[in-house]
Structures are given as C-alpha cells and as structure tokens.
C-alpha cells in the first residue's frame, strides 16, 4: 500500500515531464529547477493523467499506459537535462515548504471524509469509477440519486486510481488525490522566496482563504488555490520569468478546469481582464518559444474532453434560464441578498481592501503598477461580477420561499474564495514590486 502511494509521486512527475523535456537546454540557468518549471511539470502530470483516463475510459489500461509514459518521459527528461542535475540541498524556504507539504498531507490523509459535497459528489463519483473500473455512463452516472454527474472528474479519477492501486476503497486513502494537488500551490509560494513580506502575505492567504476546504474534500478551496497560483505564475511570466512560468500558469489553469465548473468563470475572468488590458495598451505579452506554444494547449485536453463526453453521453446538466435573472432584477430583496452574500463576504472585503492598498502602495513606491497585479485584480472583480450573475440566473429554489437565501447561505461563502485568491495575488504581486524597489534602493545606496 505504501509503495503504491509513494509511486504516485513519481507517476505524476514523470507524466508531466513534457515541459522539462520540450524546453530542455533552452531553459536559462536561473529557471532550471525553479518553482515555475517544477509547477509546470506537476500540473502537466495531473492534467495528462486526467486526459488519459478520460480518453481510454478504463482505469487499468489508462494507469498502465500512464505508467509507461511516465517512465519514458521522466527518464528522457532526466537524460536530456542531465547537466542540470545536482544533489538536492533543501535549505531555508525549500525545507519549510517540504515540511508544510508533509504536515498538510498527514492532516488530509489521517482525517476521514466528512463534508457533504465531498461524500455525495466528488468522492462518491470516484467510488463509482473505482468499483466499475471505468468511467462511462453505464457506471450509474444517470441514476436520479447521483448529484451533478456533469461535474469535472479530475479528483474523482485520481481517487479511483488511488483505490485501484491499493485494491480497496475507504474514507481515507482516496484523499491522496487532494494531497497530489498540494505541490503546485506550495511551489507558487516558493516562487516568492526572495521577497519575505510577499511570501508571508501569500502564505497566510493561501491557507486562510481555502481553510477547511484544504482538507474536507470539497473542491472550492483547491479551485481558489489554483486560481491564485495561475495568477501568480502569469504575473511572473509578464514580469519576464520565461516560458516555464507561462507553462506553469497554463498547467494550473488546466488543473482548475478539471476541478469545478466554476473554472469556466475563471477562464472568462482571465480572458476579459487580459483583453481589457491589451486594448488599453497596459499589457505587453512576452513572446513564448515555439516549444512552449506547442505545449500550451496540452493541460486543457482533459477539460475539453470531459465537456465533449458530457455532451456525447447526454449527462444531465443544470439549465438556468435568463428569465430567472429578469425576474430577480425586479426584486430588490433578491439583489440585496446577492450583494450582501457575494460582495460583502468578509474574505472578499478584506482581500479587496488589501488589493486597493497594495495597488496604491505599488503606484507610489515603485516604477508603476505591475501588469500582473492589475490583471489579477481585474480578473478577481470580473469573477465576482460573474458570480452575482450566476446567483441571479440560478433556477434552484426559484419557486421555494427562501430558496435563493438558502442557496446563497450554502454556496456563496465557498464560491467567493476564488475571487478572494485572485485579489490577494494582485496584492502580493504589487507588494513584491514594492519590496523589489526597496531592495534596489538599499543596494544602490551608500
């Protein structure tokens, strides 16, 4: 059992070796072994495993092919980049990050499932896949008691694969799927290791925003973490961190697409924010290498494949007609409720105030606002606006007195975490710029 669980780390790293293999010697010295490249490798591994399992359908053959590919890609990447290889010397922040990873992994694995959504949706669907040994509509996804069969399956598939490796299902070990999601956010934090204030704020935010969702098996916390990590990697790429940062951002967004449907809102938010900044002439995109451009769509293969399968298998999908929004627009009580629960959520208010402070500070104390900070803040605001729209059109409880109130009470506090993470990353990137200028000032002083 322990061997199976330990091998999963090599499996994901090997499967995701494509960025290290493709960029290879073209990676500049400073990027070799950087958190960006490692995060790209890890997130690509998660995404390729997701796409493979969906494309093949059966767990056994998908795992066998995945293991073969992991071995091949991993060894090829190691061989191609053998000149980089050095004995590991974990020190300072790296050692702390490893410790954080071990503590979180123990906390996750030694606490059985307890959350309602985790038990009824994510891990139950993993259990169905494990017992059937495959993912197909025939495993029971169309049964009326199956809640949200159209939800993405990255974590259910990882949970089913874990159970398949150990040979049985229980309420602990499938949570390894959550542990395997931890490295990318931790690596995103490590990318800030040269800027202690930014690192401290980001570390606090990356724990406080998802909080119980790190452990309880619902996906909202991880969606927030991956949104934050993607925003941070994008900011680094815009700041000249190179192709590995771009691939890390793509990988993080790809994983987000496999976690929850709200990732589509995240894509929309980043798309609109980037378009607005480009149109305003405030954003200059670095030119990626052809190898990076070629790899860029790979992490989204699982996301696209799952949407196609949902359509092909005719799985039940919730429809929320616009007429509900029109009805609610004429109800001041409903509008006030939505604004209260979404925009005045304490996590949103604190993150928005921090973002405003960070941007003002950055404007006054550095060369100007970093594009990555503005991109993250605008994406966070667009995400919040889109969430308000989602609750406006939400059909559930339309005819039940207090239905919207109940929905907001149970869902809003979870969903706003992604927007909070984006706003927080905006603050962190702005603060990092201030720290950099402070450091430069000291260096250039007498």
């Amino acid at each position: 059992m322990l061997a199976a669980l330990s091998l999963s780390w090599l499996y994901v790293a090997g499967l995701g070796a494509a960025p290290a293999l493709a960029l290879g010697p073209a990676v500049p010295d400073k990027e070799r072994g950087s958190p960006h490249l490692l995060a790209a490798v890890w997130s690509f591994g998660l995404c390729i495993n997701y796409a493979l399992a969906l494309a093949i359908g059966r767990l056994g053959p998908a795992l066998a092919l995945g293991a073969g590919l992991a071995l091949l890609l991993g060894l090829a990447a190691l061989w191609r980049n053998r000149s980089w290889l050095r004995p590991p010397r974990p020190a300072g922040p790296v050692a702390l990050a490893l410790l954080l990873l071990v503590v979180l992994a123990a906390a996750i694995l030694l606490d059985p499932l307890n959350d309602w959504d985790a038990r009824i949706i994510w891990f139950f669907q993993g259990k169905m896949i494990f017992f059937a040994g495959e993912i197909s509509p025939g495993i029971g996804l169309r049964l009326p008691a199956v809640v949200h069969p159209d939800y993405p399956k990255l974590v259910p598939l990882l949970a089913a694969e874990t159970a398949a490796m150990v040979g049985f299902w229980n309420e602990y070990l499938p949570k390894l799927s959550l542990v395997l999601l931890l490295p990318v956010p931790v690596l995103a934090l490590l990318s800030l290791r040269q800027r202690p204030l930014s690192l401290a704020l980001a570390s606090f935010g990356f724990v406080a925003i998802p909080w119980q969702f790190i452990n309880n098996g619902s996906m909202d916390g991880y969606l927030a973490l991956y949104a934050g990590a993607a925003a941070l990697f994008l900011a680094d790429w815009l700041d000249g961190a190179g192709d590995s940062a771009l691939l890390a951002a793509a990988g993080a967004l790809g994983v987000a697409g496999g976690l929850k449907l709200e990732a589509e809102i995240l894509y929309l938010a980043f798309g609109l924010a980037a378009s607005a900044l480009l149109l305003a002439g405030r954003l200059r995109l670095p030119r990626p290498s052809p190898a990076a451009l070629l790899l860029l769509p790979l992490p989204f293969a699982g996301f696209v494949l799952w949407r196609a399968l949902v359509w092909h298998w005719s799985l039940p999908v919730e429809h929320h007609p616009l007429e509900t929004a029109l009805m609610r627009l004429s109800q001041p009580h409903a509008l006030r409720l939505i604004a209260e629960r979404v925009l005045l959520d304490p996590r949103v208010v604190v993150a928005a105030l921090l973002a405003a402070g960070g941007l003002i500070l950055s404007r006054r104390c550095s060369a100007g606002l970093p594009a990555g900070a503005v991109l993250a803040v605008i994406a966070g605001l667009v995400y919040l606006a889109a969430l308000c729209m989602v609750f406006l059109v939400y059909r559930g409880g339309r005819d039940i007195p207090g239905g919207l109130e109940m929905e907001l009470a149970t869902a809003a506090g979870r969903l706003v975490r992604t927007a909070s993470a984006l706003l927080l990353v905006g603050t962190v990137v702005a603060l990092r710029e201030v720290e950099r200028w402070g450091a430069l000032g000291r260096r250039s002083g007498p």
Partner: protein
Amino acid sequence: MRAGGRSWPIAPAACAGAIGALLLLLLSGTPLSVSFRGFLTERLPRNLAEAGRPGGGERRLPDPVRAALGLLRDHDVAAYRVSRRLGFDPGLWLPTFAAAWPIRPDEGASWYLAFSDEALPAGCRTVERRAGMQLARCP
C-alpha cells in the same frame, strides 16, 4: 551564531525548547492540552489503524446511515429499493446511497429499506431492525 568566538548550539537548543513546550502543553490540563492528548492517544492511533482498512472511516457517517449500511451488508444485499419516506429524506437517503455503493438501488429489487416505524408494502416482512431502520424482504 558566534559570541566571543564560541558557537552556540542553536538547533539542539531549539529542539529541546520545542520538546519542553510540548511536554508542558501536554501536562497543563487546559482544554487545548486535553484535546491534544486525545488526538495523540485516541484519534491518531484510531485513524492510523483505520486508514489501511477497507471501509475505514465510516464511523463518521450518521447513525441511521451506518445502521442501513450494516443491514445491507450483513444480509449480502446486491440491490435494494427504499420507502418513499426515506427517498424523500435527502439528508439520510443520499449518504446511505453513497455509502452503500456498489450495492445499488433498483426499483425491481426484493430487498426493501425503510424507517423502523414505517408500515411495509403488502406481502413484505421485516428481516431485521437496527437503530431506527428496517430491512424487509418483499415478493
């Protein structure tokens, strides 16, 4: 750190300090120390033991769900149907459905799961009652 040419053993001193603080916390008798002791002596060993077992961790399920699960498993049920009242109680029905899987709900099944105080459909007879739930066999 060096002071007057002598090097201070910071790491062992920090470890000794941390161990001392942990011992103090464990022995202090505060609610936090009682909870931490409970974690070390009860919850951690139980979780470690259950984590490696099939079905481990099901103790967190609500009592009626565990009762229903026990009834279905002990009688080797492969498929079952539920009473209307249970089916309309999502707080109990959905966790039962999820926990019992791969034992499937099936409208044509002869096993019938219901609350203990429910009247059974004609021809069905109770096989066993447990913690507010009953399993019946129907023609």
